[in-house]
């Protein structure tokens, strides 16, 4: 059982490596958005420190949204989604592994680049650590919730826009707790509460979203 799952992750990583240009786009988008704000707002350190966490989080949200349609679209078009649907393994388990691969490709790079962007917003050392921890907990939630939307909009003509409308409201709690954690560190309140809430949300998403995504994929295959 774990053999097939591991194979699926390996396959998706291999494909991503072979078309790495496309994968890098979301990361470049993330960096660009976060770089543009200081240019528009001005170099005052105090303002930048205040808005930094929020802007980095919104950029991460948008970058994750940009990458979402690729989660299932290629598999749907070339027919390999049917292989997944007809595999003896439970579909929800396979879907979870696909989301893990997707996060490794599109989410993890954001987490790794974020501290550099944080420096630009003059975040303190502790603030940077909190930012990384919050993104590490938060970006998988974005991929998990986003997968439901990606599966529901599969094969629709204006799927991209609909996907944004469906998924962005689900992202709100992640944004609030994620940006809140960094602000809490900066103000000396401690980030523990925010990170715990993010962790709880991650567990909830891990349990619930693969099943919902699997159901949505079965619906997509019927049309």
């Amino acid at each position, binding site marked *: 059982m774990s053999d097939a799952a591991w194979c699926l992750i390996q*396959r998706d990583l291999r494909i991503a490596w072979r078309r790495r240009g496309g994968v890098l786009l979301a990361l470049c988008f993330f960096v660009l958005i976060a770089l543009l704000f200081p240019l528009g707002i001005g170099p005052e350190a105090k303002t930048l420190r205040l808005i930094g966490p929020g802007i980095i989080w919104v950029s991460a949200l948008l970058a994750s949204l940009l990458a979402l349609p690729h989660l299932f679209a290629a598999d749907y078009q070339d027919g390999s989604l049917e292989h997944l649907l007809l595999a003896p393994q439970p579909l929800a388990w396979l879907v979870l592994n696909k989301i893990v691969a997707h996060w490794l490709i599109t989410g993890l790079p954001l987490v790794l680049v974020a501290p550099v962007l944080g420096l630009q917003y003059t975040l303190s050392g502790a603030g940077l650590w909190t930012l990384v921890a919050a993104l590490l907990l938060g970006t998988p939630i974005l991929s998990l919730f986003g997968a439901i939307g990606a599966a529901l909009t599969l094969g629709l003509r204006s799927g991209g826009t609909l996907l944004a409308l469906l998924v962005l409201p689900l992202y709100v709690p992640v944004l609030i707790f994620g940006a809140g954690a960094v602000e809490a560190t900066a103000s000396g309140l401690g980030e523990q509460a925010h990170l715990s809430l993010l962790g709880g949300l991650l567990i909830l998403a891990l349990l619930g979203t693969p099943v919902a995504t699997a159901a949505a994929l079965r619906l997509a295959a019927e049309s």
Partner: protein
Amino acid sequence: MSGTSGHPVLQARQLCYCRGERLLIHSLSFALSAGHWIHVRGQNGSGKTTLLRLLAGLLPAESGEVVWQGRIIRGQCAAYRQALCYLGHANGLKDELTPVEHLCWTAALRGAPVSTAKARQALNRLGLRQQADLPCQNLSQGQKRRVALASLSNTQATLWLLDEPFNALDRAACQQLQHLLEQHLVQGGLLILSSHQDVTLAGISPQQVTLSTTPDHV
């Protein structure tokens, strides 16, 4: 439907399926026993692909049931999916992967991993020795179809559902595929295929299921 001998392994009972307002498949029944095969015929749009997808469990039937080894298949059934190999219109190939990688990963997904050597052997059998390590995007339509069909020779599935398997194949590949299908039947496998061509498999005459395009309205 006559022509079966022995105990039926796969049965369809009164299968119905509607697409929109149209009754596409109307009360279709058949029984298939080990070592036999069904040739699904019909004009374009008569529901051949739909029938195969129904049998694979990709579509839910409006009414009626599919029975596999005496058990009614409803929704999720791991044992049925284990025994099933479905090949649709789309080949399910990834442009970025090579044929060898494709065979290895589909086999692992089905829970029966194969070595690269065995994957190469399967590709050789369908005349793809030179293309085994090229990315699939460099292959022609017929070669892609061959790669998809090559996975048949590694599968342990007993029931093969093939949607127009002869499409895009040249004459040599058609013969190799026929040989593969005959081998499968001799080993006691079951086969349901749709094709516009006449298909003759040595020694075993098919049951014919013909779908009509009569405008039945619900």
